[in-house]
């Protein structure tokens, strides 16, 4: 128990990540608004379709159109149609406090228990003449009271991603795990070259074995996620896919190298050197290149919105960090199993051959 505490910790953290990661609900969201092209000075009944809401006839829901940080329009009335659909009536003032003739504005819903949720730049409103001062002077009340808060922990609602946001806890830790395992193999290889203990080389090879497994799983799960959100299993337009594939090829070559050399000590020395060089290359490929290229389809990169407040929402963090630690510990457990089986095989080959 004392020696294996980290294995059980890893298993517990992964179990936690799976249970909470799947069962914690998403924030409610706004799926669709009809109509979305409005004119200033008109009255509209906006039909709003929502996600993950449980409206009832008695639900107290407020609707707002956010013009900017200072000005907004509150709905005249909100009628609940279905558990995930409502109708909000808005009177759009003749003049808007904007210097553009046509601009996109956000819509906000605020409901008891569910909290407040927004669809940014959802409506486009056209005004006939631009009169900033006149608009501000004639603006109806801007006092909306307090926005309602959610009464439970929820994950952020992200268009395109929806529930697949939860893959953050399973796909991303594969890559973190792979990196930590490669780091471990680097340490092991360096130690082998220092004191020529063959077991260190076997440990390095086991860690790289699991690192490659995690990399393959990362690519496979990423492909599934991509098919449902980007519309394609794979694309060479995306830098992160290219560099992860390159890194995996690099470490496939590590095993080819080991297979090609018969002499045990030569095999150990050469593959140790290769793994050290490989790690340097992998760090450059995985961490430097994507930041240099900048352009990306991945959330949080290349101008895409991230997962939450400032890239990672705190409700996600409480599951993501334990998940990374858990999957990494699990990876080291798998590596240790591989290492132990190699040691045993070696031992009994010597004994009986």
């Amino acid at each position, binding site marked *: 128990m004392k020696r294996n505490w980290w294995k059980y910790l890893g298993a517990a953290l992964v179990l936690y990540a*799976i249970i909470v990661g*799947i069962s914690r609900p*998403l924030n409610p969201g706004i*799926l*669709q*608004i*009809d109509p*979305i092209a409005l004119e200033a000075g008109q009255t509209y009944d906006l039909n709003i379709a929502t*996600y*993950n809401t449980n409206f009832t006839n008695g639900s107290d829901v407020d609707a707002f159109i956010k013009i900017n940080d200072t000005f907004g329009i509150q709905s005249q009335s909100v009628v609940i149609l279905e558990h995930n659909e409502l109708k909000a009536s808005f009177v759009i003032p003749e003049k808007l406090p904007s210097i553009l003739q046509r601009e996109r504005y956000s819509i906000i819903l605020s409901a008891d228990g569910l909290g407040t949720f927004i669809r940014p730049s*959802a409506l486009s409103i056209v005004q006939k003449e631009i009169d900033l001062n006149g608009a501000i002077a004639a603006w109806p009340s801007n006092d909306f009271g307090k926005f309602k808060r959610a009464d439970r922990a929820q994950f952020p609602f992200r*268009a*395109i*991603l*929806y*529930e*697949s946001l*939860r*893959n953050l806890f*399973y*796909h991303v830790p*594969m890559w973190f795990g792979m990196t930590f395992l490669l780091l471990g193999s680097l340490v092991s290889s360096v130690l082998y070259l220092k004191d020529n203990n063959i077991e260190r080389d076997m440990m390095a090879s086991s860690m790289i074995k*699991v690192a490659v*497994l995690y990399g*393959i*799983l990362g690519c*496979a*799960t990423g492909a*599934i*996620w991509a*098919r*449902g*959100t*980007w*519309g394609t299993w794979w694309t060479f*337009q*995306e830098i992160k896919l290219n560099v992860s594939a390159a890194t995996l090829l690099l470490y496939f070559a590590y095993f080819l190298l080991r297979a090609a050399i018969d002499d045990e000590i030569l095999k150990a020395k050469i593959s140790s050197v290769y793994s050290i060089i490989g790690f340097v290359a992998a760090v450059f490929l995985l961490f430097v290149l994507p930041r240099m290229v900048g*352009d*990306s*389809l991945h959330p949080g990169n*290349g101008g*895409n919105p991230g997962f939450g407040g400032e890239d990672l929402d705190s409700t996600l963090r409480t599951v993501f960090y334990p998940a990374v630690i858990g999957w990494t510990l*699990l990876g080291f457990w*798998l590596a240790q*199993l*591989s290492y132990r*089986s190699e040691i*045993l*095989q070696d031992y*009994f080959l010597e*004994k*009986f051959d």
Partner: protein
Amino acid sequence: MKINSLILLVFTFGISCPLLAKDPIEVALHSSGKIYLVVGTLAVIFIGILIYLFSIDKKLTNIENQIKDNE
């Protein structure tokens, strides 16, 4: 490259109307909120780790058989 990803983003992000012709996979994913992507991810990881465990198990079995044969 930038234009392509921009177009891809605009297409999937900006359009609120669900009446565009979509292939059945996308409709199924969207109506269930894409939870199946998470199910698929977990299944793949689990199967991958299982395969790895099987291969280690097989190796250990071979060693055990060798011990047995040599006793």
